[in-house]
């Protein structure tokens, strides 16, 4: 008879004889990141409280916060980011919905195109919009050609609206990608059942599809919010004199004015804003990604 009695109490096995613990292997890349990224960021924070005159304090903050240019930039940044996010969410949801659920000729090619679009530089969009809506460009050209007027009516590119339009165009694919992934996991039987119960398309979208993909929508939306807060190329390329965002202000102060301390103050504000939103984004995506992340080896 094999013993099924509890074994006599035994010491836990002695530690494995290993030269180096496994976790030390993670140190080189983390150190590298720390040296070239975290340490410089810390210096930015330090510089922002170390005015050129010497000593330490928040004098630079008071000075920067007092400037109308900074307050305008903050307002512009927030307004443009909010507008771009709202636009990208609406457009991205509508387009993704059609790609996922209405058979289209070349639907797959469109999906691939969206992927490629993500890796293009953002300023390309602004450049294109200059040719479409610029002073000499497609839209105004059509207008003057048709009406014979000397100039066309489209002159919004150098305003906030121009920046918002460019950002909506550029960021919409960032909303579409997680949405398309979420749509592909949606059980189409649910839609068929809803349709067989007499629900029409708008109702199905509102009551079946939307609740299912809300996490993906939220995740995509907050990603776009962060990215539009940090966007630089689009604003720079519109050459809009009246529109300044925080990143543009950082660039202006550091490179054009040579005021590093002021630039660091604006940078700290920008980082704080972005990190807060990014934390939100990570929380939202962590919730949607949980089931896959929890995969474990079979015991």
């Amino acid at each position: 008879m094999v013993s099924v009695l509890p074994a006599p109490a035994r010491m836990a096995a002695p530690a494995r004889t290993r030269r180096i613990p496994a976790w030390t292997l993670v140190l080189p890349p983390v150190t590298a990141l720390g040296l070239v990224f975290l340490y410089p960021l810390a210096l930015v924070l330090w510089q922002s409280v170390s005015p050129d005159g010497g000593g330490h304090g928040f004098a630079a903050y008071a000075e920067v916060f007092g400037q109308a240019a900074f307050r305008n930039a903050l307002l512009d940044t927030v307004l443009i980011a909010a507008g771009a996010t709202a636009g990208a969410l609406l457009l991205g949801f509508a387009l993704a919905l059609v790609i996922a659920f209405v058979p289209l000729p070349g639907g797959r090619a469109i999906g691939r195109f969206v992927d490629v679009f993500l890796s293009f530089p953002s300023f390309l969009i602004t450049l294109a919009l200059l040719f479409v809506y610029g002073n000499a460009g497609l839209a105004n050209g059509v207008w003057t050609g048709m009406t014979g007027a000397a100039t066309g009516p489209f002159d919004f590119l150098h305003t906030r609206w121009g920046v918002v339009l460019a950002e909506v165009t550029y960021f919409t694919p960032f909303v579409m990608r997680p949405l398309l992934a979420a749509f592909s996991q949606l059980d189409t039987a649910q839609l068929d059942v809803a349709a067989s119960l007499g629900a029409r398309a708008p109702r199905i979208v509102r009551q079946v599809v939307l609740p299912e993909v809300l996490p993906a929508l939220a995740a995509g939306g907050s990603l776009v919010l962060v990215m539009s807060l940090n966007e630089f190329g689009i604003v720079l390329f519109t050459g809009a004199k009246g529109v300044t965002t925080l990143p543009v202000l950082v660039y202006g102060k550091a490179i054009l004015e040579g005021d590093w301390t002021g630039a660091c103050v604006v940078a700290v504000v920008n980082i704080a804003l972005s990190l807060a939103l990014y934390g939100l984004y990570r929380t939202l995506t962590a919730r949607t990604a949980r089931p896959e992340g929890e995969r474990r080896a079979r015991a």
Partner: protein
Amino acid sequence: MLVHSRRARWAVQGVFLALFLPVFALPFLVVVAASLATQWSGALPSGATLDHYRTAVRGEALDALTTSVLTALAASALALATGTWAALAARGPRARRVVGALFVLPVAVPSVVVGLALLVAFSEPPFLLNGTPTIVVLAHAILVTAFAHQSVAAALDRLDPAYEQAAASLGASPLRVLLRVRLPLLLPSLSAAAGLCFALSMGELSATMMLYPPDWLPLPVKVFAATDRGALFPGAALAVVLVTTTLLVLLAVSRVRTRASYR
């Protein structure tokens, strides 16, 4: 399928194309058209020419393209090595979470601020990098590391632990398991990550504007310089060259990937 009647489907498709084409396809067509023209005062550009391209592939413009490609190659290699190493070394759920959070931080911080931070940190000895190509490469590497790390980490999550366990049971040391089993199985994801890193670095403008030295001028800066002084049409040609180069590299990388995943 959401829309069942044929007419409704046509209507939806029509609206879709009316939104999708102008918003996404038009920009590229317009830039390409402009790059072949000398002026645009009517509905269509006029004065067809290839001059912009002739200038765009020689002299300074060619140098800028070479600079961009070299920067992107170096930055992608650095980012891929660091990101992959970090993803592979972080074993166990807690380590994965901490390292993951650390390596996505560069995405959350504005690129301009990354540039500023490097300026502040590396403008005086002992780390005097300001004014060297190294600082540009470094900035690009930092900015794309997050993407490299994320795609490798996601692929590792999907990798069945049975493979490395089978290899270990056959007597393969951890290093051998890494080189002969885990990395080959990750090859498709690694090449995808490499392509993404390369493309992002090729188009990077924000941090580059803060950092580039006069003798290391990447193509996006050149595009900006051209449009800023009003030379929109040559600028468009430069942009087309930039995008085409990027697409060619992406295509080559995706061919590697297909080969790797078909084995």
